[in-house]
């Protein structure tokens, strides 16, 4: 990468934050950086809503009987927790905030390929959000986030139609974001930015976008079929009218398994950036890490049956899906081992973002390998639909995706806001999140194997000590997640101005001032070397 020469004074290229202060300039801006901030605010709000529901669940589970919530209340609490967290926080979190902000910067473009479409995606997301908040206000829905039929089509009395509409709408926001990324990555790369020099963050978002575009419509159709059956009595899932309830499960999981890769692949992209920046060293096996993102996206489409081993699926199909679930674990293993190898002989800094990255690797390994346990047919027959499964996917979703989201937040915050935050508080938050998370979810593995079913507010008294441990951990986690809100917002006013490259990291986004000007690059960059070329002395020397 050519050494960067740019005017010292920042004022000449007006920072995108100061290019207009009116509400209109924010709400109708097509600048990918501003839309990323709009997303950041809206998904944080929904993270708060989901966290409230989680707090209610953990509080209820402190006692073996239903003392805090009624059974009805508990059913609605875990349903809203699932729906809000999956579709309104996890899926948009890293792609919509950091993907939007960074992909154009990382590939040397002025903006995404379709800026107006990008703004439309945010408005569709907000419209879906309104539907969810409406459903929440009028009493929520009691079918679980999986909306299994015939419960959701005939026996649920909650607001299934409005929640189906909410997920249907927000699905299109993801499709359009995915489309925008694919076209941008293909057509707007700066001269010299070949596929072999793309940052791994961009590779993982490319794989995520392919899944977003191809898998989300299947969920949209499954929701249309639920609405059609509830409104017009079309018997596609109703056994009395010749339909098959398993058809819904097949459609739902055909989307929902690739969806878990939509949630975790961007997190892997973030960790690839953080690990290389932490170690000041090129990633180990760039080609393998990039190719494993594409492999995960590909194989991810053919493993959905492992959610239905005991659901009445034919045993032969289950054996095939079980084997394929082993194959899909291989690319994830490659990534984890490559990250670890990258740290070998590095120049490792322990600033907050890099603590989050190491936390991600640890927790994701546990999540991934317990996933392999669940792929074992005989083990799944015992622990399916128990808190073992709950712990498994929280290790990947919360231990993985949310930790990486916070890592990304701490890594690119100076670039986004132009302010540095208090690094000590950052490390405290990272440690607390790691501790609180493990205390919350590791007991649930033990509970699951003991036979504690998921979605149960009541349980035998001998399980209480494990539930109390988990609830205690949840309270720590609650505080730990609130900490960054405090010191990051504090840094907006009080934080020292951030230099262009606070972590001396490698990448086009660090060659522009923080916060970057409205048009990203005053002179279109030309890329001459491979990604993460830390051997170049120029990057290392600049203090």
């Amino acid at each position: 990468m050519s050494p960067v020469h740019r005017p010292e004074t920042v004022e000449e290229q007006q920072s995108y934050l100061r290019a207009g202060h009116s509400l209109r300039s924010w709400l109708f801006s097509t600048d990918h950086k501003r839309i990323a901030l709009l997303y950041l605010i809206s998904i944080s709000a929904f993270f708060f809503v989901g966290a409230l529901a989680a707090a209610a669940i953990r509080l209820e589970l402190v006692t073996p009987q239903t003392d805090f919530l009624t059974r009805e209340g508990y059913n609605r609490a875990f349903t809203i927790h699932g729906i809000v967290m999956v579709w309104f926080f996890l899926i948009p979190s890293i792609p919509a905030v950091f993907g939007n902000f960074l992909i154009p910067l990382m590939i040397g473009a002025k903006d995404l390929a379709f800026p107006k479409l990008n703004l439309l995606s945010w408005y569709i997301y907000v419209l879906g959000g309104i539907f969810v908040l409406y459903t929440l206000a009028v009493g929520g829905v009691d079918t679980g986030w999986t909306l299994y039929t015939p419960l959701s089509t005939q026996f649920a009395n909650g607001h299934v139609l409005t929640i189906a509409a909410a997920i249907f709408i927000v699905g299109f926001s993801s499709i359009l974001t995915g489309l925008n990324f694919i076209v941008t990555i293909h057509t707007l790369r700066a001269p010299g930015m070949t596929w072999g020099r793309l940052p791994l963050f961009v590779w993982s978002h490319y794989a995520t976008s392919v899944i977003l575009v191809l898998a989300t419509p299947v969920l949209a159709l499954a929701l249309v079929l639920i609405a059609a059956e509830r409104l017009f009595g079309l018997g596609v899932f109703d056994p009395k009218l010749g339909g098959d309830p398993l058809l819904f499960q097949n459609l739902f999981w055909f989307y929902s398994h690739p969806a878990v890769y939509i949630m975790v692949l961007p997190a892997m992209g973030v960790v690839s950036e953080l690990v290389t920046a932490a170690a000041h060293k090129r990633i180990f096996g760039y080609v393998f890490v990039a190719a494993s993102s594409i492999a995960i996206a590909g194989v991810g489409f053919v493993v959905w049956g492992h959610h239905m081993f005991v659901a009445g699926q034919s045993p032969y199909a289950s054996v095939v899906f079980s084997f394929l679930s082993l194959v899909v674990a291989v690319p994830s293993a490659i990534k984890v081992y490559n990250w670890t190898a990258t740290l070998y002989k590095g120049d490792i800094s322990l600033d907050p973002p890099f603590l989050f990255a190491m936390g991600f690797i640890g927790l994701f390994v546990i999540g991934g390998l317990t996933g392999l346990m669940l792929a074992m047919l005989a083990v799944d027959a015992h622990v399916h639909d128990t808190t073992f499964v709950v712990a498994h996917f929280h290790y990947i979703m919360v231990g993985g995706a949310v930790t990486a989201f916070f890592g990304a937040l701490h890594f690119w915050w100076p670039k986004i806001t132009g302010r540095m935050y208090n690094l000590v508080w950052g490390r405290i938050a990272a440690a607390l999140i790691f501790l609180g998370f493990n205390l919350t979810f590791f007991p649930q593995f033990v509970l699951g194997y003991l036979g504690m079913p998921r979605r149960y507010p009541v349980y035998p008294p001998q399980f209480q000590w494990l539930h109390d441990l988990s609830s205690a951990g949840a309270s720590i986690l609650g505080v730990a997640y609130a900490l960054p809100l405090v010191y990051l917002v504090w840094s907006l006013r009080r934080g020292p101005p951030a230099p262009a490259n606070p972590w001396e990291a490698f990448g086009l986004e660090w060659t522009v001032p923080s916060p970057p000007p409205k048009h990203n690059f005053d002179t279109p960059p030309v890329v001459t070397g491979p990604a993460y070329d830390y051997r170049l002395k120029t990057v290392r020397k600049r203090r």
Partner: protein
Amino acid sequence: MSTAAERLEPFDLRSQKRRADRFGMFVFLASEIMLFGPLFVAMAVYRVLHPQAAAETARHLNLWLGAANTALLLTSSLLVALAVLAGQNGRRRVVAACLLTAALLGVAFLVVKGVEYQAEYVEGLMPKIGPPSPIAGRAPTLFMSLYFVSTALHAVHVTVGALLLAGTGVGAWSRRLPLPKRAMTVEVVGLYWHLVDVIWVFLFPLLYLAR
């Protein structure tokens, strides 16, 4: 109207933007195909599990109206393809004429579909509403359910397509859409319409020709 450079924004060359628009539209069509995908899967599985019931129930569908609808859509596809050609050569009036006729044929498709639905309503084939259904049993009702869901979802897409065609036609006619500079808009709308036609090309045999 923002300056021309402004609208090119992330792209430097117009040709670059045109290639990106076209590629973006095909990616969107991929997501539309996946929206109808599971319906085709359900119908294919249905035809394997209940071959007999499919044959009986399909007789209740009006083959000739179905065929007429297919012809309508194929012809409107031709008109749209010609409009795209004319758009690239700046022939404003030809684009407007072709697009508006194609939109009319789309509306005709919807009218024919309405007639079919009305006939099926009278015959009682509609699930919950309407007189008692002549076909008893689970497999036939499932066939009709699949028929209604897929044709209704397709009709929604035809309606959106027809509106887009009409809008672009009027835009071309009133010069608000300068040709051939903005010919890509005509092409993108055309691509959407062709996909709606391709989906019907697959729906027609799966549904009507089961007899």
